[in-house]
Structures are given as C-alpha cells and as structure tokens.
C-alpha cells in the first residue's frame, strides 16, 4: 500500500534520513521505533510531503506522491494523528471532528461522526465542550477521531502514547488494534517500543536516520539489541 524506496531527507545541509526503504502492506500495523531525534517524525512528515524527500520515491497505492503537495496527499485516503495531538483547543469536540471531515462527502459525514462516537463514547459526552479543556487522553481520542472522520484507508499515528497515563495508553492501543481489525492500515511511530511492538505485525527500528533492523513485531520484541536499547533490558 505504501512503499518508500531509498528516501533521503535534508534539513538545509543536514541529512536527517539516509536511504530509507520500508513498506506497509494493506491491513497491517507497522511500527517505527527509535530514540529521540532518530528521524521517526521526519520520516512520517516526509511521506506527507513536508519536508520533501530530497531523493528516492514514495509510492502510495501505486502512485508516486513524493512530488505532490501536502494537502493533496492528505486527501487521498491517508490521515495523520500528529505528534502532540494538535487538536483545535478553542473549538468544541464536534467542531474538531467537523474539521476532520472537511472533505468528506456530506452523505458519509454523519455516518462517520457516529462511528467515531461509537468508538469513543467519551467524545459523545463532551460533544459541546471546548477541546482544550479535556484531559490528555480525551484529547488523544479526539485527535484519532478527527483523523478517522475522513474515512482513511491508512492512518498515521505519531507517538499517540506521548504524555499519557499507562491505563490510557492501554486503551489507545486497544483502539488502534480494533481499527486494524476494521480494515484500516496503520503506520505507528512510537517511542513506547514495548506497547507498539506488541500490537504491530511488523516493525522497523530507526537510528540516526538509518533503518537498522526490520522484523515481525513478535521477533523484535524478543530481539536482544532491541531489548537492550528500547525495552530497558
């Protein structure tokens, strides 16, 4: 579904990604784990077209999107839950969701809204509350719900567990697994390697802009290198 071949990205003269190749197949959860500054978020943003890849090709559903403008890419069945949630704090929950469904045809819009509320009953309760006044976990749910409003075939999640309580993280990951079961392909960027690898079909490990390891989630979870570096031994 999504394929990166030898993708490099530069911030000015500094090279952030070195010849990254990876693939996400339909219906999979693929996770990308790595330390701070390894290039996880850069990789995700490169796929979205900002910053642009300086070399290599990014193919999504058989089409090269490496030269397409960001807003175009984001309207082709791909949705992002950005790092740090980035919900519209001053707007209500419902309005946040409506922004997510901005390009959704009005016929589907209502159904989507209902699906999101079904997935996150908590959001339904807070429909008319300002999003900024909710707890971190609820905001993360909102960010995911907002992304789902556009009926994505593929969902990018950038550190959904950031700054959340363990019990909430658990819930969020359950939801992610549930989404995969409903047919959404998921690309998950995480620092919380333990949780991410548990639900992932496959995983990639990124270090200093290089992919250093790739394997199934279960294998990576027991891999000694990974255990030492990311799972605290």
């Amino acid at each position: 579904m999504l394929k990166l071949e030898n993708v490099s990205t530069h911030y000015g003269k500094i090279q952030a990604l070195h010849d990254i190749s990876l693939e996400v197949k339909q219906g999979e959860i693929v996770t990308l784990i790595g330390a701070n500054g390894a290039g996880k978020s850069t990789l995700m943003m490169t796929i979205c077209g900002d910053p642009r890849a300086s070399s290599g090709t990014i193919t999504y559903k058989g089409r090269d999107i490496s030269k397409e403008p960001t807003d175009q890419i984001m309207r082709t069945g791909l949705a992002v839950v950005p790092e740090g949630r980035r919900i519209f704090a001053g707007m209500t929950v419902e309005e946040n969701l409506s922004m997510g469904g901005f390009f959704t045809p009005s016929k589907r819009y209502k159904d989507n809204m209902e699906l999101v509320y079904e997935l996150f009953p908590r959001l339904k309760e807070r429909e008319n509350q300002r999003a900024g006044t909710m707890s971190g976990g609820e905001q993360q749910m909102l960010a995911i719900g907002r992304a789902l409003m556009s009926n994505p075939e593929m969902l990018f999640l950038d550190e959904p567990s950031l700054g959340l309580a363990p019990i909430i993280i658990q819930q969020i990951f359950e939801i992610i697994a549930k989404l995969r079961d409903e047919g959404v392909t998921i690309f998950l960027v995480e620092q919380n390697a333990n949780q991410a690898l548990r639900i992932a079909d496959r995983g990639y490990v990124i270090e200093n802009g290089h992919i250093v390891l790739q394997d199934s989630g279960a294998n990576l979870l027991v891999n000694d290198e990974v255990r030492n570096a990311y799972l605290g031994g």
Partner: protein
Amino acid sequence: MKSTFYSALFAAVVTLILTCLMLGVNLKTEGIALTVSMASEGTWSMIIGAVLAVFLFQLFREKLADMINLPSLPSADHFIPEGKKGEKLKQLAISFVIAGMIIWPFFASRGAVDLATLTLIYIMLGLGLNIVVGLAGLLDLGYVAFYAVGAYTYALLSLYYDVSFWVALPICGALAALFGFLLGFPVLRLRGDYLAIVTLGFGEIIRILLNNWTEVTGGPNGISRIPKPDLFGLEFSRRASEGATTFHDFMGISYNSSHKVIFLYLLAVLLVIVTIYVINRLTRMPIGRAWEALREDDIACRSLGLNPTVIKLTAFTMGASFAGFAGCFFASRQGFISPESFVFIESAIILAIVVLGGMGSQLGVILAAIVLTVLPELAREFQEYRMLMFGLLMVFMMAWRPQGLVPMKRPHLELKTNE
C-alpha cells in the same frame, strides 16, 4: 409567578432603553461641538410612567385576562427546549434593536445621526477586519488600504465614468477583494510580526500611490463633489440634476437637509446588517471554521488536507471586500476624499476596535466601534489629549480584560439533567 416577574422586568427595561434613547436625551450641535442634554422633566416623567405601565401590565397580564374572562394566551415556553428559548429571546432582542435603530434618527438631532453614520462605518470596518485578525488570526496593520481602494474606486468611477453609487458599490467590494487577494500572495509565508510589517507597508504604498498619482487621483487635493447615493433614482439634493427627480418633489414635501442625513444613516444601517448577516453565515460555514482552525493550529490544518494558502487568501479577500463596501459608502457620504483620510492611524483605530471588542466577537466589535467613535466626539474639549486617552484605554484594557469587552463565545449548548 417568578417567570412573569422576569418577563415583566425585561419588557420594562426594553421600554426604558428605547424611550431613553429616543426621547430622554437630546443631542445638539452647537457650532461644531456636539452636546448631550437631558430632555425636559415632563418628558422624563412620561417615560417613567410608560415604563411603569408596561411593567405592571406585563406582571398582571394573566390576572387581568382572568378578570375580564379572556382566554389567556397559551404559553409556548413549555414546548421550547432550553436552548431554543435563548434563541427566541435573542431574535426578539435583535428585532427590537433594529426597529429602534430605524426609528431613532427621526427623533434625534442631525449631528447625532451623522455621528451614528460614522460609527456604523467603523462597525463595518471592524467587522471586516475581525475576519482577518479575529477569526483567521492574521495581524493586518494595513487594513485602511482596502478602505481607500473602495473609496477611491467609487470616487474615480463617478468622476470619470459617471457611475452611480449602487452600480459602484459591488465594484468597490470586488476591487478591494482583488487587492486583498493580491496582498495575500506575498504574505502567505509570513506570520505574526513579519506579516504585520508587510501589511503595514502595503497600507502605506496605497496611500503614497494615491498621494502621488496626481493626474488620476488628484494627489493631496483629493477628489471632491462625489455624488451622494440616490434612492431608486430619487436624489436628496435641493435641486435635481438634469433628468432626475428629487426625493422631496417626489414625496410632495418641502426640502429638508436632514432627509439626506437620515437616508445615509439608514443606508449605513442596512449595510451593517447585511455585513453582520453575511459574516455570521460565513462563520457557521466550513470556511469560517477553517479560518478559526487555521488560527488555532496550522500544522493540524495541513494534516487534515486543508490548504492554508487558500484559507488565508479567502480570509484576506473577504475581509478586504467589506472594507471596500465601507470605503464606497464613506466616499459618497463625505463627498470629498483625499489620502489624508486613509493614514495609518485609521488602521490602528480599526485594529483597536477589534482588539478592544474581543477578537472574533461580533457583538464586541460593534460595542467597541461605538465606544471608540462616540467617546472622542463627546469629549471634544479634551481633543488634545485624545490620543493619550486612547492609549491609556488600550493599556488598561490589556491589563484588565485582555480578551476584550465581549470575548468570543462559541455556540454552546448546556445540557441540564432533571434529577
């Protein structure tokens, strides 16, 4: 009983406000100064009598209805959900205000009506800038440029091509919108302070251009004898121009120069109502939400497939078009415009209106526009200290109520549980 008491009180207050404004105070022009004076004691006692009468009647309406055995009016209140009640009250209040605004000029002095017209122009400008600054969060310090574009468009069209006000009005809006669009392009990549500086520069460019393009715009001499708007071809002058009829001839009444003032005022009221309506609709439409979303977080906007470029451009364009309408009206009201009318301080005042009122809040902007145009007029003897007071007001506002007089409130429903 309690609810009838409140509704009676409400009716009495509305009566009081309306009668006070219409009958209770007199605004008089003495020379160039405007003075406020109380009406005679007789009038006041009549006002108080009327207010009491309304209060008592509303309070005992049901009892009265019982006494004379009339079927009492069915109360619709029980059928309306909580949220809708406020809506109904709001509609009622709005109709009262509009009715009051339309009736008022026939009782007020000419100077007061003239001042009100000016205030309405500022309300329109404030509402327009509110789109750019308040909703989309783009700090625009050169807003007066679009106002100038609108004013000069009408002035030049009427000077060279004899275009009437009504034909010129949409052209002014469209041309100002075009300028907004053009300004939008270079500033798309800028934000915050940088954006403010570029827009400031743009405002100055327009003014300097108007000042120096003497062959066309008349330079610092400005353009005079700009025709006033007409009412379906009826003119408001003492003598009709060739082939036209004047309003007083048509109506068979004697000429009175205040007709023109009142007509201009009513026209301004109409323009403001249209402006409020259109902007209100826009904010409820997806594009209005997109403006707010962009102000809140542009990265999130991009992640949702929204194009910030397009959103910013629409905000600039829409905002500018309202300044264009206001400018057109301003030119026709003044009859004379020069680059002097479009200096930076005007931009600053309009921006102050938006900030003082509460960013994004329409009601706030309207109140602030009234405060900032009426107060200086009433305090004419302190004219030298005007800017000082202005500055102090802004400083105190920022210290006490940084969110503005009436902070923007999002449409909000509260759920009440009956337990």
